[in-house]
């Protein structure tokens, strides 16, 4: 893993060193580092860098949490009951391919310009991948596994909770990982409205003034926190489903 990090760094260094593109678009590592230390000391427009980052992560976590506790159960139910699926799927399939831009205005109308609409946007982004994963997971559960549970006396809900749900966990985790990445990519879009904090807003704001050095600091921070979140999920996955690939 470190080798690929080093290679990327080298490439970056070379591109800026050879002046292939203007510094305005691709700042040198040195300039980016300088911007980083400056941001660390002085913050960005009134808030510290850490504050921006945590603010975004806070919104992200809330959105992700609520998406998780709604998308997974709904997905499981949809995978199980053709009726529920017939009712939910069209809605989901409809909004899913829509660009956030197209419904953000509606979210503002309903939820105002505060954190709520931002979280709602992230929520919608995180919802779909987990829902789809859960539906697909349920469909992949061995029929006899469900039979075994019911003939052991599990009622519908128990079969769900104790058999279908754990069987789907591997797919749900994949869905969670996709979801968190997806929600992250909409962070900037969500912080486009009436925000004065957040790492996404920082990137956006810097981009308006072509401050690519600050943008790069923001982007790299987003990338690194993204990697960290993904790693955490994978660590949890290994802990939670040690049986993956076994029978």
């Amino acid at each position, binding site marked *: 893993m470190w080798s690929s990090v080093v290679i990327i760094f080298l490439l970056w260094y070379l591109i800026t060193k050879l002046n292939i*593109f*203007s510094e*305005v*678009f691709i700042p040198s590592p040195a300039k980016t580092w300088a911007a980083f230390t400056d941001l660390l000391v002085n913050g*960005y*427009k009134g808030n510290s860098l850490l504050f921006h980052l945590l603010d975004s992560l806070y919104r992200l976590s809330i959105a992700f949490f609520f998406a998780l506790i709604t998308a997974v159960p709904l997905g499981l139910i949809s995978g199980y009951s053709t009726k529920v699926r017939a009712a939910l799927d069209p809605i989901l399939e409809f909004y899913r391919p829509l660009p956030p831009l197209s419904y*953000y*205005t509606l979210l*503002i*109308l309903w939820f*105002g*310009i505060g954190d709520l609409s931002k979280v709602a946007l992230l929520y919608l982004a995180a919802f779909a991948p987990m829902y789809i994963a859960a539906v697909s997971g349920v469909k992949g559960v061995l029929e006899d596994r469900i039979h075994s549970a019911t003939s052991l006396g599990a009622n519908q809900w128990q079969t769900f909770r104790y058999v279908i749900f754990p069987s789907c966990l591997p797919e749900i985790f994949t869905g969670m990982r996709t979801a968190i990445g997806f929600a992250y990519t909409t962070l900037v879009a969500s912080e*486009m*409205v*009436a*925000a*004065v904090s957040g790492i996404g*807003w920082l990137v956006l*704001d810097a*981009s*308006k*003034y*072509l*401050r690519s050095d600050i943008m790069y600091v923001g982007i790299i921070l987003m990338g690194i926190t993204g990697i960290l979140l993904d790693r955490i999920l994978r660590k949890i996955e290994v802990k939670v489903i040690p049986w993956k690939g076994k029978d």
Partner: protein
Amino acid sequence: GNKTTSKPADDKVEFRIGYQVIPNAELLAKATKMFEEKFKGVTVKLHQFEAAVDVNTAMAAGEIDAGLIGSSSVASGVAQNLPYQVIWLHDVIGDNEALVVKKDSGIKSLEDVVGKKIAVSFGSTTHYSLLSALKLKGIDQNKVTILDMKPADMLAAWKQGQIDGGYVWYPTLGEMVKDGNIVITSRDLAQDGILTADVGIATKDFIKKHPDVLKQYIKILDEAVGSYRSSKDTAADAMKNELNVSKEDAAFFMDQLIWLDAKEQASDQYLGTPDKKGAFAKALKDTAEFLKTQKAIQTVPDLKAYEDAIAPQFLQQD
């Protein structure tokens, strides 16, 4: 980038323009097919852009030779040594950008915005206008809650009563005026020397290699201004499709902007002449000063740099 060489296929120079959908002379020229008909020995390619950032990027990638960006973007671009120069003022912003406040907000004049929520699109000309206006009136901007919003979102927040006002352009401005009052417009500010404009820029490379093409280009734009002034009705008719609005609206939008012909632009008040650059250089420097307070740029270059960034030679028609 070094892809800027416009390849002279079948002896024609390729001239690539990045335009934005703004009801000015360039869009009128496009609507009336003037570029196709009037250019001699030049193939024109028009690319639509949504934001100055993208115009800058495309220019750096060597994908376009000329483009339109707001004066704020020019001020920061010059500060960052981007290799382009100003060749034309597509329009000076007039009544089409204004600060509008809710009728029931109790705001009668600019002084009353203290303690209120005002929305503006950060990084745009309106942002500069708003903050400059506050400064002009000696109002501490920290006493106003200034929110960053795109026009459509601003309108939504406005309708929901979440903001007291916004500095914005048409057609959002038009919607907001329906239940709001205009406090100040960019035309008012322009009179106080706070000038904002949509600026035509071209790469230094292209300016050096194809001055003749640019000369033709400016001539066409100048003619378009002329034709607009002579027949606003025909112009509105041509423009309505480009804007996808009714003819009346098109006429109205065009009217809000200040159109300048080549001669007016060559005056002291604007770009000036190659020997004596006009006041626009000062306006750009002022904008840069403002940008520095916004941490948008690190240093403000001297006036000379801004004068050097203006290339008014094409305005001289012979």
